[in-house]
């Protein structure tokens, strides 16, 4: 469902993504891990047709992402890094906009909107403008927008960050149900425990290069230990002034 061949993106002399090769099957939940600045968001942008690659090719849903970006956008759902919300629309209006733009009938849009608002506990805030929403509400709204058109592939950039535990559980359940019905999910994450729970495929990236790609069950050790070994180990620095009396 997702296929990358020698995918590369350069910004001047800096190579953000370097010769990335990746295959994700239909119905898989692929978790893409890496430190900040490793190239995760750049990869997602190229996979969703938002950024043309410098070289290499991307195929999603059988479409060349660089050549058919608009057709691709009709078939995928995206939760962007910055959530992609308009301050001047309410939570509900964002969902109504999505249904109308993706060509759903008015009735179907309202039906799905009502269900998503209920499923994500957004009913009480449906008339709240995005500018006045908490970060968690904004993330849930953007997540609901990604699901509403019933996409073939979901791209989610850090969906579990800054959401409460109950919402996180609801989101995980929804994603696992979607995956069982054949929706392919590609998500980036920093919360390794959540990644370990839902992933069927684990990909790790470091400095633009893939350093690990396997089914989730084939990890040789815990995800956290493996991540620290391959990607980045925590730095331990003693800050002797921290907690000392003010001078």
């Amino acid at each position: 469902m997702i296929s990358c061949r020698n995918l590369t993106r350069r910004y001047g002399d800096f190579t953000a993504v370097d010769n990335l090769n990746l295959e994700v099957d239909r119905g898989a939940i692929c978790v893409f891990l890496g430190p900040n600045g490793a190239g995760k968001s750049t990869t997602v942008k190229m996979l969703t047709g938002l950024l043309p690659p410098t070289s290499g090719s991307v195929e999603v849903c059988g479409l060349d992402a660089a050549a058919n970006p608009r057709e691709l956008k009709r078939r995928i759902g995206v939760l962007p890094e910055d959530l992609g919300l308009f301050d001047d629309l309410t939570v509900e209006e964002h969902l109504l906009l999505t249904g109308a733009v993706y060509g759903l009938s008015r009735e179907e849009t309202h039906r799905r909107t009502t269900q998503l608002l209920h499923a994500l506990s957004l009913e009480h805030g449906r008339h709240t403008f995005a500018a006045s929403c908490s970060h968690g509400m904004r993330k849930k709204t953007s997540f609901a927008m990604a699901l509403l058109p019933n996409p073939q592939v979901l791209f989610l950039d850090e969906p579990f960050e800054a959401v409460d535990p109950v919402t996180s559980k609801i989101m995980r359940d929804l994603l696992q149900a979607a995956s069982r019905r054949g929706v392919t999910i590609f998500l980036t994450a920093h919360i390794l425990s959540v990644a370990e729970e839902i992933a069927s495929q684990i990909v790790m990236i470091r400095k633009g290069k893939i350093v690990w790609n396997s089914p989730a069950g084939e990890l040789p050790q815990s995800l956290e230990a493996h991540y620290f070994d391959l990607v980045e180990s925590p730095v331990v620095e003693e800050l002797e002034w921290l907690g000392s009396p003010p001078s």
Partner: protein
Amino acid sequence: MARLAAILKALWRAFQRSEKSIASLAGNNFFLVAVLFLGKAGSFLFLIIGLVILFPLSTDPLRKIPPSRLGLWPLEKREQVLLRAISPWINPMTWAIVALALWAARGSVTIGLWAMAAGIVAAGFAVSELPLPKGAAMWRRMPHFPGPLDQLIRKNLREMLTTLDFYCALLLSLATALYRLFGPPLPAEAFMAMTVLVTIALSSYAQCLFGLDGDGGWSRYGVLPLSGWRILAAKDVAFLLVVAVLTAPLAPLTGMGAGLMALAMGRRTSVLDPRPQTRWRFSAGASPMYGIGQVILMAFAASSIFLTSWLIIFPCVVFWAGSLWWYGQKLEESAR
């Protein structure tokens, strides 16, 4: 005071980094036109002084500090007041405009006028501290429009109604309409002139149509399966709707011609050089020279329609439609 000095120093550095040339200093078309009339002084001076003071706030350097960060710093109330009062003067445009105003009003400034100016200064600075809504909560109710762009048009209307440009144009439109109803008869050309002035007050907004969408809105446009011209059309419908309503009591067709030209000319900076805007401020367009070009084209179209033939509206529509198509493609490229 050391804290205040450190913050002002950081502000100065941030301001210098983002405003590297005189061309990048924000320009508001209505302000530019007001400056042209500055030498005429008279009763109009009151309005001009108001704009002179409000305009620098449209490029308020204090905006560069996120409010959440400002709220966390351990500043005394006195330091906060001083920061509010001093920070606009980091903007060299503030100094230039005040010097220009003083020069233009030389010899005719009375104590009463100074008192009025001081009041407007105080009010102008207070605007930044008012608890105005972040979004357009006060414009919750909006009409619906047919088609898939409904919510985008409603959003765009809400955005436009949270700029001072709209309220300035509304004031001009209402004042002229009331004068028309209750005052002595005016020559027909006066309505054309006021129509042009109303559209000029709105025209800087046409240079920054995406200014209030923010980063999130911009990335959403990239994700939506919409062609660029349709995204622009949703912006234009909202803009032209406001123009139509505000010029309805004046010279509506003339206003529409000027509005179409404002959009066609403003498209380049809106799409290729999008500038973030702040709510409850005047829109800050591109360079003053660009604004003057936009105003000249608007005035030319409006006067041609009013004085020659209403058929001139058709070339205006063609010009506007051409810019919609061309920059629609550019928008798709830049949103990717």
